[in-house]
C-alpha cells in the first residue's frame, strides 16, 4: 500500500478520535460533582452567594451543558483553548511551558526501560534457566508490580535521605540558577530519580519480551546459518538475532507512550516535577476545566503521534509489512 496514502488515513482517523476524546473528557469532567466556583469559594474560605453566581456567569457555567460543549469545540477549532480558571492565563501558554518537562521525563523513562529491559532480556535468553535470568525475572516483576508512587517514595528516601546524593524536588536548583552546560547537568541530576522510577515499571515488560523473542530467534534457522558461517557470537546476536527481537519491542514501546503519560502523573506528583502530569492532577482537583481538557487533548495528540510514528518505524523495520505480505 502506498505509504503516503496510509499515513493520510492514519491522520484522518486520529482527528476523528481527537474529537471523540474532547467530547468524552468534557462530559466526564462536567459530570464530577462541584464546580470551579465551589473550589474558588473553598480557597477563599467561603464566599457570598452573589460572588459564586458571578463566577459561574463569568465562566459560562450558567448555560446548558450542550451549549457549553458547542461553544468549547467551536473555540478549539480556531485554536482557542480558553483561559485557566485557576491561573487566569491562556491555557496554551501554561501547557507550552509544561510539555518539555513531561517529554524529558517520559522519553528518558522510555529510553531507560527499553535499553535496560532489552539488554537484560537478551542476556537472560542465552541461559534461560540460569541464576541471572531468574533474578532478572523476579526483580523486574517486583518493579512492575509495585505501585509507581511507592517505588518513587522509596527511591526518594534512599537517594534523598539515607544516601543523599540526588535532589528530590523540582527540575532545577532554584536557589542557584545556572545556564548552559551547568544547567543541563542540573536538570539531568533532577531527572535521574523520576525517570528511573517511571522506567522501573516498564523494564519487566521489555526484558520478558526481549527474552522470549531472543530465545525464539536463537533457535531459528538463520541464526544457525550465521553460526555455521563462523561469525563471532556478538555479531550473531547483535546483528541477526536482535533484529527480530526488536520488532515487538518497538511496537510495545510506541503503544506504551500513553501508559507512560498516566504514570507520569504520579511520578511528577511525588517528585514535584513541573510537567503536564501534575497539571492534570491539580486541574482535576481545582475543576479547572479549560486547563484539564487542553492537557488531555495535547496528551492524546502526543500519544497518537507516537502511535503513527511506531507504525512507520515498524514498517521500516519489518519488510513483510511494507510489502503488504502477511
Amino acid at each position, binding site marked *: 500500500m502506498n505509504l503516503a496514502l496510509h499515513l493520510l488515513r492514519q491522520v484522518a482517523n486520529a482527528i476523528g478520535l481527537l474529537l471523540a476524546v474532547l467530547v468524552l473528557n468534557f462530559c466526564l469532567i462536567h459530570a464530577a460533582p462541584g464546580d470551579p466556583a465551589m473550589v474558588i469559594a*473553598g480557597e477563599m474560605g*467561603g464566599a457570598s452567594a452573589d460572588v459564586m453566581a458571578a463566577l459561574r456567569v463569568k465562566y459560562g457555567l450558567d448555560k446548558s451543558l450542550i451549549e457549553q460543549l458547542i461553544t468549547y469545540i467551536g473555540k478549539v477549532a480556531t485554536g482557542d483553548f480558553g483561559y485557566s480558571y485557576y491561573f*487566569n492565563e491562556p491555557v496554551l501558554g501554561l501547557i507550552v511551558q509544561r510539555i518539555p518537562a513531561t517529554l524529558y521525563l517520559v522519553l528518558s523513562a522510555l529510553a531507560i526501560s527499553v535499553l535496560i529491559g532489552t539488554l537484560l532480556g537478551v542476556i537472560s535468553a542465552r541461559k534461560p534457566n540460569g541464576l541471572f535470568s531468574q533474578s532478572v525475572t523476579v526483580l523486574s516483576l517486583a518493579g512492575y508490580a509495585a505501585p509507581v508512587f511507592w517505588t518513587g517514595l522509596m527511591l526518594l528516601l534512599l537517594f534523598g535521605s539515607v544516601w543523599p546524593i540526588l535532589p528530590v524536588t523540582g527540575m532545577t536548583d532554584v536557589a542557584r540558577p545556572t545556564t548552559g552546560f551547568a544547567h543541563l547537568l542540573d536538570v539531568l541530576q533532577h531527572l*535521574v530519580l523520576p525517570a528511573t522510577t517511571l522506567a522501573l515499571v516498564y523494564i519487566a515488560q521489555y526484558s520478558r519480551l526481549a527474552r522470549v523473542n531472543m530465545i525464539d530467534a536463537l533457535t531459528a534457522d538463520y541464526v544457525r546459518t550465521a553460526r555455521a558461517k563462523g561469525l563471532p557470537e556478538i555479531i550473531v546476536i547483535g546483528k541477526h538475532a536482535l533484529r527480530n527481537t526488536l520488532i515487538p519491542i518497538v511496537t510495545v514501546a510506541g503503544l506504551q507512550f500513553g501508559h507512560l503519560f498516566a504514570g507520569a502523573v504520579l511520578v511528577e506528583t511525588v517528585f514535584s516535577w*513541573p510537567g503536564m502530569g501534575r497539571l492534570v492532577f491539580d486541574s482535576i482537583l481545582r475543576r479547572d476545566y479549560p486547563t484539564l481538557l487542553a492537557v488531555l487533548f495535547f496528551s492524546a495528540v502526543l500519544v497518537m503521534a507516537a502511535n503513527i510514528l511506531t507504525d512507520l518505524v515498524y514498517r521500516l523495520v519489518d519488510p513483510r509489512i511494507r510489502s503488504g505480505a502477511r
Partner: protein
Amino acid sequence: MSSTWSLRSQSLKTSFLRCAFSLALAASVVVPGVRAASAADGGTLVIASTQVPRHFNGAVQSGVATALPSTQIFASPLRYDENWNPKPYLAKSWEVAPDGLSVTLHLVDNAVFHDGKPVTSEDVAFSIMTIKKNHPFQSMLAPVEKVDTPDKLTAIIRLKHPHPALLLAMSPALMPILPKHVYDDGQDIKSHPANLKPVGSGPYRLTEYKQGEFYTLEKFDKFFIPGRPKLDKIVVKLVSDSKAAMVSLERGDVNALPFISNVRDIARLEKMPNVVVTDKGYAGVGPINWLAFNTKKKPLDDVRVRQAIAYAANREFIVGKLMGGKPKVATSPIAPGSPLDEPGVEMYKLDLAKSQKLLDEAGYTKKPDGSRMTLTIDYIPGDEEQQRNVAEYLRSQLKQVGINLEVRAAPDFPTWAQRISNYDFDLTMDVVFNWGDPVIGVNRTYLTSNIHKGVIWSNTQQYSNPKVDELLKAAAEETSPEKRKALYSEFQKIVVSDVPIYYVNATPYRNVFSKGLSGLPTTIWGMMSPLDELYWETPPKT
C-alpha cells in the same frame, strides 16, 4: 535494507551510550545542597510550599498560597507581634475616634513602591475600597463608608458604626497597600495583569515566577525600614509532595517549610538535628478542626442527640492518642491562643452513661440489636490524620452508645463541598480558620443571616439562635475591649451548649526552619507577614 538497519542499530548504540554517559555523569556530579553566605551577604532562603498561588495580589484573593508572597511584596498599615499587639508599619501611628466612627492613619514619609513612586494616602484609600469591594472576606471592611485623604500622609477611614475588627483587618495578610497608579486603569482588578507582576512597597520584589515551579523574591533596596530586609533573596519552591519537601530540607536544598500539620511529619522533623520546629505563627489564622452537625435534619435537630455525641466522642483520646498530643485541644468557636478564647465552656468530657441517658431522653431507645440510629459522617479528603482518621474513630466510638456511623468518602474537595453546602449530610469533619478577629472568620459559621445554600463555609450547619445573632452583632460594634470580650464569652458558652459543632483541636500547624536562621517569624501571622527580620546568623555549611 541491511545498511539502513546497521545505521539504525548504530544510532541506537550511540544513543544508549549517550544516555548511559549522561546518567553516570548526573550521578557522579553531586552539588552540595547548601551554599555558604558571608557576613556581608544576606544570603538566600529557599522555602518549599505545597501552596500554588493563583496570583500575588492579596487584596482580591484570600488564603495562605497568596498571603505568603503578597505579604513580602506589599506593605500594610499595621503589623502584629506575638501577643496580638498592633505595631506601626506603613502607618507610623493611628488613632481611633472616641465615638469609634473613624480611624486616622499617619503614614511614614519614606515609603516607596518598587517602581520608585512614593506611597501616599491616595494609595491607602484606593486599596481599602478595592479590598472592601473585591476581597472574599466581606465582613472585614463592610462598615467602611469611605476613606478621606486630607493630605498625602493622612488617611481617615470613616465607618458606618464602630468596627474594632478593623485593626486586625489592617494586617499584612489582609490589607496589602496597592499602587493606585498601577491598578486604577479601569481593568478588572481580579484578573489584572499586575497581579502576576506585582508592584508593592514591601521588603521584597517579585523578580521571577515560573508557573507551578517556583517564584523568586529579591531584596527591595529602597524598603522604608532602614537595614531591612536582611536576606538578599527568598525563593519559594512549589512542591506537590510534603514528604519530598522534608527530604529536601534534610538535604539542605530547602531551608524552610511552612504549613506542616501532619503529626508524624512533625515528629520526624523534630528529631532532625539541623532543624528548628516552631508552633508559633498561626495564632492569627486560628485553624479549628471540628465535627459539624446538620442541625436541621432529624435526629440531629434535637440538641440532646448532639450533646450525646459530644459526650461520647472523647476529644482527649483523639488529640492525645490519634494525633500524638501534638495539637492543642479546641473547645469553643474561638481558636485556642486568641485572647478572646473562653475557657469556661462545657468541655464534654467523655461520659458514656450521660450520653446514653440523653439519647434515651430524646426518644432514641436501643433496638434489640443494640443500635439506636444510623447516621453518615463525611470528611474533607486529603488530610487523613485530621479528618479521615477522626471520622473512622468516631464510627467505632459512637457504636458504644448505639449510634451506627457510616463513613462516606469523597474523591476530592469539590465533591465534599458540593454535599456539605447543599446540606446533603448528617455529620461532617471540617476545618475552618478564625482569621484573627471573630468578625472576619468566626461569625460566618453561626449567623442566621449567613445560611446560604450552595456556599461552602457559610453557616452550613443551618444553626440559628437569635440570641447568638444579637451577641455577635453587639460584639462586632463594641469598642470597649472588656465588654467585647464578655460578649464573646457569652456567645461561646451558648454555642458550645447548643452543639451545632463539636470542637476537636487546633490544626497543629508548624513552621520548620534550618538551624542557623535568626529572626524567625513567630508573630500571630507567622510566614504570612513580612520576613524582613529573618537572616542567616550561622550561614549554612557547604
